[in-house]
């Protein structure tokens, strides 16, 4: 007793709980030691520990495989709660790789990046892809529009297919899913994301893997604990950048003498003078409206403040034989465009169960429903808004139902409708349902053998309704066309209304069998896997529509004025089967060879080309474990060198594309019967997949025990046999010929660096990270007689240049590149060449910067991104110039001016710099002229460079002392966060976010053009309360 009491006197009991930072769940089995001693214990299944420590003990060390070791000071109260952060750098960490197989990081001979949940969800982005922006070297995320649920394009290592899909393959719980899933799963449910940058690591996924892969694993319940979590986020959304407009001049169209026109949208009128002027034509009852002739900011106020609410809950539990994870999310948003709304519900149930006979089963299921209610006329209303003269208070016309000056008859403008009315009259309502499910059945008959059978289903159902409201103009309105300049269609044409209903469904069923063998043979660690998979995709799209509605407000194809509705149906079924094998040989843990081979059979290819084989191999070497003097080196903690080669095929053709088709044409079908037209495309009878061959090498290093970590990769790929429809002479009877031709080469460097300059036992930790990507590609060749390939939107592939490039019209220029002007009029002239190349439209240099500062339970994070090395074409710019609303049109105050960087002919073949010949006019005659300014593409090309603060967040885990001793709430976290907070653009960009893009994410390789279809970029800011029960 004495002895014991002495011990008691000299020591004290310390208790506490250890949790994981990522999910806040307790961590069992964590080793807890008194720092500098061997005295220690392990945490219980509920993450708790009790340890008797000497009085002299100052701090405890917490260590656990896969997590960074933490040292925490023992406070006077004797309660030490530790939060462990997972260690994504440790080479012994086991990660998920292609095919659902696992590997240690050290054995991966190709570039990968791990993203942990904490990093993913810190900005509370709703779309998983948005949440990855700036965080992964080599990964380019473009949010291609604003709107209630922005579409995202996700590309690894640049574009390599001219016309095929270049977006990364998305794998969710070992099942390949459509990219749209990224916007329709709950980021809170994600346990881990592995980004496989190149085809090498992903080759096992088959012909979709040439674009790299993003492997997402969702959460499972943890053994021995039951945790209930709930959180609520509120955020606001606000336009962050407006196009730059002129504020000096109001309505008018006249050249030379500026003259006010009360019904005009063009803004080439007199300078604002503040006097009251009549706006628009009198109403039928004779009433008129007047406004002060001065600029107001109503065009910017048109965009509303968005509001988002996100509610989450999850329940996770587990015991020795089973686990479950059940979660739900409800997200609701009101957009910045008046009337636009969106909501989303996600429900997930995951579970595992160990059965007898060494069999275990795991399942993942998820159901998502989202609902859009938005205008289908975003481009129309945005154009109408920008066509609004500065003196018009556009926000006064919101009530188009009761305000006679706001309705379609009374609106002041002879050519454009009220944007509020347009937004309300043209609607699109979409409901998407996603069901995802997978079941993994595993059998481990022997220690060295594992058999896995996996079934997955991805089912999507969409119903979509587009409506245009019916209305009739009054006779008075229709007669307005006889006044003055004459009114446009908006004042003469009745709207008969339309309704179009789509029902689209897709289902993908996958089935996979894997047999894995693993054995240590002396110094060799050998594993091999053989697998076979089947995949079936079915899609069915149906549409029924009518133009000509019977009644206002009744949208049903049954209630129409036309004798028949129009309809269409498209059904497709494609199948793929594959066998693959992987062999992995490790030698003494520091040298690893990984070889994969896969043979695909695709139903969409010609029978003789249906089967194709592609291999990949990579090698990793860890000198820090192989070479004696590097072992336990105090500076270089670990170093991995890696290299790999790969070949992957991608079949870039649609189902049934091999056989030319006949379709109804020339108005057919008529009531008199059918009539069919031969299609205009010839298809090569020998179409093959596009083949991407490539190699990469790189290194990953940790210094000073992970305080500095760095990674660098160089890659080069070459994609040949591009599937391209080549235009052919119409006189051949056809217009295009689909064949394999052309080659695109890509190369690039991906680097990342993470430094922890401050890490103290008192809880301070500062982490600074950066990733830099240089990516370059080049069209090596196209087909014979194909000098360039149009991708659409003025975007081209041109041999010898990067892909893609933007082309367009330009002025006639002298040999020095100066614009040639007429010596008398000062006017430039439009060159007849329409294929001037202005540059590539894909960012070639990207820098992501990450910042994290921790102090105990406080965490401040920020992600910034810089992109440069590309140009963007603003298709809106022309509209701004034509309407006279753009800032450019007032640079010279509507006076005559000398065109910068211009020259005129000296009459003898030379050119004299123009310093004094001013344009004959500086108003409408210049800015709306297709010969001088308007729609001359070179005027609307701008640098795509941008710096932006992607996200910033501050979170605080409320200490137990504040939560108190009540039984219910175990933990609470409060956070504030913002996304897209700041955007810095070069002076040449007076338009919008250069990331925005008018083509959609699906197969939209024609990047680099933005239009009025993209509303102004927005920022989000919000706050979250998370509770753990």
């Amino acid at each position, binding site marked *: 007793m004495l002895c014991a009491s002495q011990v008691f006197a000299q020591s004290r009991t310390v208790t506490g709980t250890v949790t994981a930072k990522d999910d806040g769940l307790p961590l069992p089995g964590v080793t807890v030691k008194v720092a500098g001693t061997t005295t220690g214990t392990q945490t219980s299944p509920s993450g708790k520990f009790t340890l008797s420590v000497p009085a002299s003990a100052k701090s405890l060390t917490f260590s656990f495989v896969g997590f960074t070791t933490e040292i925490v000071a023992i406070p006077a109260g004797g309660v030490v709660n530790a939060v462990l952060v997972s260690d994504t750098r440790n080479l012994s960490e086991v990660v998920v790789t292609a095919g659902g197989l696992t590997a240690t990081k050290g054995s991966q001979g190709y570039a990968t990046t791990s993203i942990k949940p904490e990093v993913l969800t810190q900005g509370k982005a709703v779309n998983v892809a948005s949440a990855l922006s700036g965080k992964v070297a080599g990964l380019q995320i473009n949010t291609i529009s604003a709107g209630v649920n922005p579409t995202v394009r996700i590309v690894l290592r640049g574009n390599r297919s001219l016309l095929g899909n270049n977006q990364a393959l998305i794998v969710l719980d070992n099942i390949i899913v459509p990219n749209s899933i990224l916007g329709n799963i709950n980021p809170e449910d994600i346990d881990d994301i592995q980004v496989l940058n190149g085809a090498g690591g992903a080759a096992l996924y088959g012909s979709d893997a040439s674009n790299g892969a993003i492997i997402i694993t969702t959460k499972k319940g943890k053994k021995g604990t039951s945790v209930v979590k709930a959180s609520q986020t509120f955020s606001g959304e606000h336009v962050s950048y407006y196009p730059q407009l002129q504020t000096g001049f109001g309505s008018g169209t006249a050249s030379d003498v500026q003259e006010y026109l009360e019904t005009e949208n063009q803004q080439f009128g007199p300078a604002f003078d503040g006097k009251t002027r009549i706006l628009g034509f009198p109403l039928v009852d004779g009433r008129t409206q007047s406004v002060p002739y001065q600029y107001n900011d109503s065009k910017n106020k048109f965009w509303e403040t968005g509001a988002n609410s996100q509610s989450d809950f999850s329940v996770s539990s587990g015991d020795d034989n089973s686990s479950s994870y059940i979660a739900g999310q409800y997200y609701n948003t009101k957009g910045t465009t008046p009337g636009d709304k969106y909501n989303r519900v996600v429900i997930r149930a995951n579970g595992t169960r160990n059965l007898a006979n060494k069999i275990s089963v795991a399942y993942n299921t998820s159901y998502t429903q989202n609902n859009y209610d938005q205008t289908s006329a975003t481009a129309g209303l945005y154009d109408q808004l920008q066509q609004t003269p500065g003196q018009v208070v556009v926000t006064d016309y919101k009530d188009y139902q009761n305000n006679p000056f706001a309705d379609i008859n009374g609106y002041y403008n002879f050519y454009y409708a009220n944007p509020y009315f347009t937004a309300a009259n043209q609607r699109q309502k979409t409901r998407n349902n996603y069901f995802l499910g997978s079941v993994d059945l595993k059998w481990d008959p022997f220690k060295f053998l594992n058999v896995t059978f996996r079934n997955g289903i991805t089912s999507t159902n969409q119903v979509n309704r587009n409506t245009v409201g019916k209305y009739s103009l009054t006779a008075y309105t229709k007669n307005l*066309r006889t006044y003055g300049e*004459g009114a446009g269609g908006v004042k*003469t044409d*009745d709207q008969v209304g339309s309704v179009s209903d789509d029902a689209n469904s897709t289902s993908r069923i996958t089935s996979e*069998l894997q*047999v894995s*063998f693993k054995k240590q043979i002396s110094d060799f660690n*050998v594993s091999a*896997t*053989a*697998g*076979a998979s*089947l995949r079936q995709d079915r899609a069915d799209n149906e549409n029924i529509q009518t133009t000509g509605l019977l009644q206002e407000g009744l949208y049903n194809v049954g209630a129409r004025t*036309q*004798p028949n509705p*129009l309809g269409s*149906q*498209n*059904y*497709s*079924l494609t*199948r793929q*089967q594959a*066998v693959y*094998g992987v062999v992995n040989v490790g030698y003494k843990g520091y040298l690893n060879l990984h070889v994969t081979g896969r043979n695909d*059979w*695709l*139903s*969409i290819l010609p029978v003789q080309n249906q089967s194709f084989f592609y291999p990949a191999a990579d090698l990793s070497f860890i000198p820090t474990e192989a070479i004696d003097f590097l072992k336990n080196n105090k500076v270089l903690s670990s170093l991995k060198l890696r290299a790999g080669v790969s070949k992957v095929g991608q079949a870039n053709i649609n189902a*049934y594309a091999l*056989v*030319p*088709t*006949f*379709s109804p*044409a*020339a*108005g*057919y079908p008529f*009531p*008199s*019967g*059918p*009539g*069919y*037209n*031969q299609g*205009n495309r*010839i298809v090569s009878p020998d179409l093959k997949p596009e083949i991407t061959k490539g190699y990469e090498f790189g290194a990953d290093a940790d210094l000073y025990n992970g305080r500095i970590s760095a990674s660098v990769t160089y890659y080069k790929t070459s994609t040949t046999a591009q599937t391209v429809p080549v*235009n*052919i*002479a*119409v*006189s*051949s*009877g*056809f*217009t295009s*010929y689909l064949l394999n031709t052309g080659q695109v080469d890509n190369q690039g460097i991906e680097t990342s660096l993470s430094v922890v300059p401050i890490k103290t036992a008192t809880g301070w930790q500062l982490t600074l990270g950066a990733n830099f990507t240089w990516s370059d590609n080049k069209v090596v060749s196209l087909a014979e007689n194909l*000098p360039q390939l149009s991708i659409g939107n003025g975007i081209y592939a041109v041999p010898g240049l990067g892909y893609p490039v933007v082309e367009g019209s330009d002025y006639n220029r002298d040999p020095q590149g100066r614009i040639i002007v007429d010596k008398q009029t000062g006017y430039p002239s439009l060159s007849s060449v329409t294929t001037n190349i202005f540059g590539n439209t894909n960012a070639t240099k990207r820098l992501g910067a990450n910042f994290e500062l921790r102090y105990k339970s406080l965490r401040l994070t920020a992600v910034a991104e810089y992109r440069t090395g590309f140009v963007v074409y603003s298709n809106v710019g022309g509209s701004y110039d034509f309407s006279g609303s753009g800032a450019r049109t007032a640079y010279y105050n509507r006076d005559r001016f000398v065109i910068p960087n211009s020259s005129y002919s000296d009459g003898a073949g030379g050119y004299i710099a123009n310093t004094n010949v001013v344009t004959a006019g500086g108003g409408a005659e210049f800015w709306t002229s297709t010969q001088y300014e308007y729609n001359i593409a070179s005027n609307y090309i701008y640098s795509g460079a941008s710096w932006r603060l992607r996200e910033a967040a501050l979170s605080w885990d409320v200490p137990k002392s504040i939560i108190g001793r009540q039984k219910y709430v175990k933990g609470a976290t409060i956070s504030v966060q913002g996304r897209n907070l700041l955007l810095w653009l070069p002076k040449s960009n007076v338009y919008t976010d250069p990331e925005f893009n008018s083509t959609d994410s699906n197969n939209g390789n024609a990047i680099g053009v933005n239009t009025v279809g993209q509303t102004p970029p927005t920022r989000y800011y919000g706050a979250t309360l998370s509770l753990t029960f």
Partner: protein
Amino acid sequence: MKKIFNAFIILGLVASSTACKKYLDVNTNPNEVTTATPDLVMPQALAASAALSQTFNGPTYGMDLGGYVANAGGVGGFGNFWTFVFNNGDANACWNNTYDNLQDYQYIINNTATTGNYKNFNAVARLMKAIDFMRLVDAYGDVPYSQALKGSAQLQPAYDKGTDVYKACITEIDAIIPQMQVPATLTTIALSSNAAGKIDVTAYSGDGGTTSPLSGTTGKDMSLWVKFANTVKLKALIRISKVADLAAFYNTEKGTLIKDFTTSDVLINPGYVQQDGKQNPLFNALAFDYKGNGSSSSFLPSTYAVAFYDGTKLSDPGRGKLVYRQNAGAYSYKNQLGFQSTSLVANPTGGAWYSGKDTGGNPTGVAAEGYGVMKAFDQGQPILLTTESYFLQAEAALIGLIPGDPAALFKSGVVASFNYLDKNRAGVVTAGTPSTQFDTYLTNNSGSYLVNSALWASPAAADYNRDATQRALEAIITQKYIALNTLNSEEGWNDYRRTYNANLSIPGSPAKPVPSGYPFSSVDNSTANAPYSFAANFQTNTSPRADKLAGRILYPASEYSLNTKNVPATNPNSTLVFWDARPKN
């Protein structure tokens, strides 16, 4: 390891077995037709020919080049059609849509034989192909013919000379006619309709009357198609009649010409309805769209064309009301080409050519029982009207190609013009009595040899054109010009080029010796002379030729980029179609 590889091999064997081949055999298109019988393609090809007819007639080809149309008030664009300075982007539809149409006829030809059950399909496709190619030559001169329409076998077809294409087409017609005349058998596939619906949308392969041995099996009698083919050949022979290179060929063909020409309007009507893309192409383009909104308001009738109705050149209130919408009884919807003042009257909603029932008021209903040019959305599309047939015969009789009285055929042509315009949408003559209307017309213009054939041989002192034959030709061409106004306007442009005669004038400006063709313009393009000249007053063409009109339209840019080695060098002013009678400069 060995086990693994065994497993791998077994899996491989399984995958490559025939069972798996079946698994992959799912690439049969369930959505679209991949093989089509000729009777499925023929109706569409004929309806596409109707659309093509409007492409050539429309404002940016025939109506403009023929002088029928001008820009409307306050309208920008179409600049090249005001200045006649064409580039490779203008009127491309004439080229592209014709070859698209030809591809379908070629498909029918490739899948049928000159004998056997599909012989009539074969003949009709070859006739329509000949029509397409000759119209293409009329617009472009040399075109790919012998190497064309071969798909991947010839991606860059060589060009054939326009004369060779014409010869080949006329020879084809020679071969088709006897093929059509071969009596049908009971197994011959009917052209009129099958279980799927109507095929011969020109409604020309009728029953053949009760005396026919095939009575009761409609769609096998080709007699009307034969008349149509004869008329097409007549038109082609007239076009080459003055071409020295083809003199021998012309004489041979003259001998084989069967003098039995169409006496009914050749129209195509697949059953147009008031729906998107299913309206009559002419009505849709210039009257109302399917929603009932006014179609293109960018054009107005030319002052030059209106002057044939309003009394300036001729007085024709009868047809004037059937062709043009009037404003309180006046022809106020008109403009001179290129005149761009914003004070100009706008094109009325519904089109200046939509005369409707009430020629004085505003026609509103799209289904109004119209007459004239724009009858209704479901009217047939003119391919070759009876009136044209008679004017072709009149000219042929005049030049000795066929026997007959040119004056009588001339009168039949004018009466047939009234007859077509008097017809309502159902084809019933209801707006007037053509013969009475002709008499009134003759009375109103009894002093003009352009109407009164009795004056052909007796020129008045004021007439510049004093040669009896030339006066007759001028009258025939002028009346054909009036009759085909907005119906087959490209014939106006063709006849201008073909009958160009530097020593003739037109009534109204007798003192001016003008380098123009028959009803056509003087070079005086002043606003004051607008009724007598269809040259734009806004004229920037640098053609050295006195008429200042375009030589031709140009090959589309796609030919220069995709058929580079074959496309001929072309000067827009001096590279003329082979039968063009104008000087090159």
